[in-house]
């Protein structure tokens, strides 16, 4: 494509984006990240995933985005690096321990975890402070989950047969999940103070409580051809209204209610061009503050947002409510003919429609989308 044609596409998208977004900020990292983890309302951690040395950074969001009033007073429209450090290997999973300045990482090649101190106001270096040995061999890496607790603890595992809760200070194992599946975990997440979900990439998941050694409640894998599944659970204050979404690599989405693990509340078929084939390709997330909405990345170079409120128990096609094309469009300026893949995305924990997305070209976007008018 001629340079002028590319410029025209970008110009068109710029005008379009004025209507589709309340805010949109673009940042370019030197190296792409596969992890996006909030460490506060205003700060997020990213880290490289190359095979050798990688940077870990804590970034502060552009002040212009955060200022709801007096936006005009904030000239700062850039992300700012507030803390940084180095890891000797790739970082494929990164979790912040709430209430601390500690993050826990995994390299995606084993089940071992590394512990880090992000640093405070007086120090801008992220330091490695220790490690936790994993209990199993893994080639896909561990999932990590953390809930606010005293003393600080971390839940982790590469398969449901070796999920454990570990005391961060002493390394003591406080809890082990009674399960025996060797299928790699696709999601590990707290849905309450001590209740958590562990899902496998075959689509089965279980709910357990770290306070008891009782067997977990299990939801079996959905029937059909064996494909990859990704899962997310909404973390509701009471378990009663917690919903689980499962999405297959062929684009089938199932919503279940934790009160009835075996059943399906509703389902739909997403339009898919190329089924993704690697576990780390896809991210599926419930919107924390928009009831019934979830987001997907990894099926195309876009982040898509769906609304399940119109879904039924019979399978039907569904269209996204909104699509973020920014990474694909703004990458046109390079000579690569392959559009960048979205490596990760995450919702802001409080702001209704703000998301962060990262792509394989090192771009990071933070965007506040406008709900399109529905006919």
């Amino acid at each position, binding site marked *: 494509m001629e340079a*002028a044609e590319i*410029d*025209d596409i*970008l*110009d*068109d998208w*710029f*005008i*379009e984006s*004025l*209507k589709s977004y309340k805010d949109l900020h673009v940042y370019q990292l030197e190296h792409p990240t596969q992890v996006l983890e909030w460490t506060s309302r205003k700060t997020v951690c990213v880290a490289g995933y190359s095979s050798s040395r990688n940077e870990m950074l804590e970034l502060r969001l552009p002040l212009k985005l955060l200022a709801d009033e007096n*936006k*005009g*007073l904030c*000239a700062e429209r850039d992300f700012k690096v507030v803390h940084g450090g180095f890891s000797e290997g790739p970082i494929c999973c990164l979790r912040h321990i709430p209430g601390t300045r500690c993050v826990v990482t995994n390299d995606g090649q084993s089940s071992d975890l590394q512990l880090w101190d992000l640093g405070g106001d007086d120090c801008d270096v992220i330091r490695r402070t220790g490690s936790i040995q994993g209990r199993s061999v893994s080639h896909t890496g561990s999932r990590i989950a953390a809930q606010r607790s005293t003393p600080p603890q971390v839940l982790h595992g590469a398969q449901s047969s070796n999920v454990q809760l570990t005391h961060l200070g002493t390394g003591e194992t406080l809890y082990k999940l009674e399960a025996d599946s060797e299928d790699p975990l696709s999601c590990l997440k707290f849905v309450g103070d001590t209740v958590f979900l562990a899902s496998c990439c075959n689509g089965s998941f279980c709910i357990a409580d770290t306070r008891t050694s009782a067997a977990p409640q299990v939801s079996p894998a959905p029937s059909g051809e064996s494909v990859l599944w990704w899962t997310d659970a909404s973390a509701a204050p009471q378990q009663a209204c917690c919903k689980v979404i499962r999405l297959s690599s062929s684009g089938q989405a199932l919503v279940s209610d934790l009160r009835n693990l075996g059943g399906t509340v509703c389902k739909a078929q997403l339009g898919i061009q190329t089924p993704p084939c690697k576990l780390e390709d896809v991210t599926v997330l419930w919107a924390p503050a928009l009831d019934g909405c979830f987001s997907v990345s990894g099926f195309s170079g876009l982040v898509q947002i769906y609304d399940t409120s119109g879904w039924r128990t019979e399978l039907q096609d569904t269209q996204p409510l909104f699509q973020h094309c920014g990474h694909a469009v703004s990458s046109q300026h390079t000579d690569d003919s392959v559009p960048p893949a979205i490596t990760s995305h995450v919702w802001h924990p409080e702001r209704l429609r703000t998301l962060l997305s990262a792509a394989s070209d090192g771009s990071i976007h933070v965007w506040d989308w*406008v709900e399109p008018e529905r006919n």
Partner: protein
Amino acid sequence: MFPCGSMDLLFTPQVRPESSGLAIIHHSMYVCELPANHRFPMAKFPRVLHFLLQDQVITEKQVWVPEIASKELLSGVHTEGYLNNFISGRIDEKEQRRTGFPWSKGIVRRCRYETGGTVLAAEVALQRGLACSTAGGTHHAFPSYGSGFCLLNDLAVAGKYLMNSSSRNRKVLIVDLDVHQGDGTAFIFKDEPSVFTFSVHCGKNFPLHKQQSDLDISIEDGLEDKEYLFTVADHLPWLMESFRPDLVLYDAGIDPHWEDELGRLRLTDQGLYQRDFYVMKTVVSRGVPIATVIGGGYSKDIDKLARRHSIVHRAATQVWRECGM
């Protein structure tokens, strides 16, 4: 001091101001309804006049009211096909998206009044030396399509009309200091020796697909007052000397301001005032008439935006006073 000679005023203003004060061109039809939450700050136009009156910078007697730009006037720049489609609402979905505006009868009307206002400002400037519209600067409009919140190119229509409206070709200098390149205007006059297009704009900004003005100064993100003023001062005086325009049209866009949502420069209110004062003083002191339009500015705070747009009128008032006009 100002070129005399027979001059047919295209417009007979509905209100002919009695005072000999600085002419401010305004029409209540500069606005139209837009869908709720539309990004374009349409409400700013009447607020500019409101603040000038409230702050007693001007009185009502200084306000001139333009007529709507006729199809004939617009056809000096825009194609027959585009004008027909535009006026009758046959602009397709894709074209509308590129302009950023959904088509409506209201938006057609307001764009035509805005263009009429810029032409009237130019005519009054020719008569009196200096005149300012409370709208204008739609420099992304091309002959056959609109773009970037611009549907008709008011500066081009005024430039073309005034160029031709005297017995000998008038030379028109268009000084465009909006933070975005005046690409439409540059394209329209690229082969016209009587009109010189001068644009100072931020390089890494819309439009990425740039046209070629007669003089383009592309500046880096983050430029502040002092360096920006130096940049303008580096070029305007020699342009005046070498091109020797009979009329200057000045786009005083405020989007170089550091608070602007879409601009990427760091000018202050003071910097904008100094810029506008400098441009107008430089032109007027050479005995050349100058008409100003407000250009671009984007902010969710309409009042702040309108006050900032009124900086050019305040600077013009000072120039008017200092030059004993």
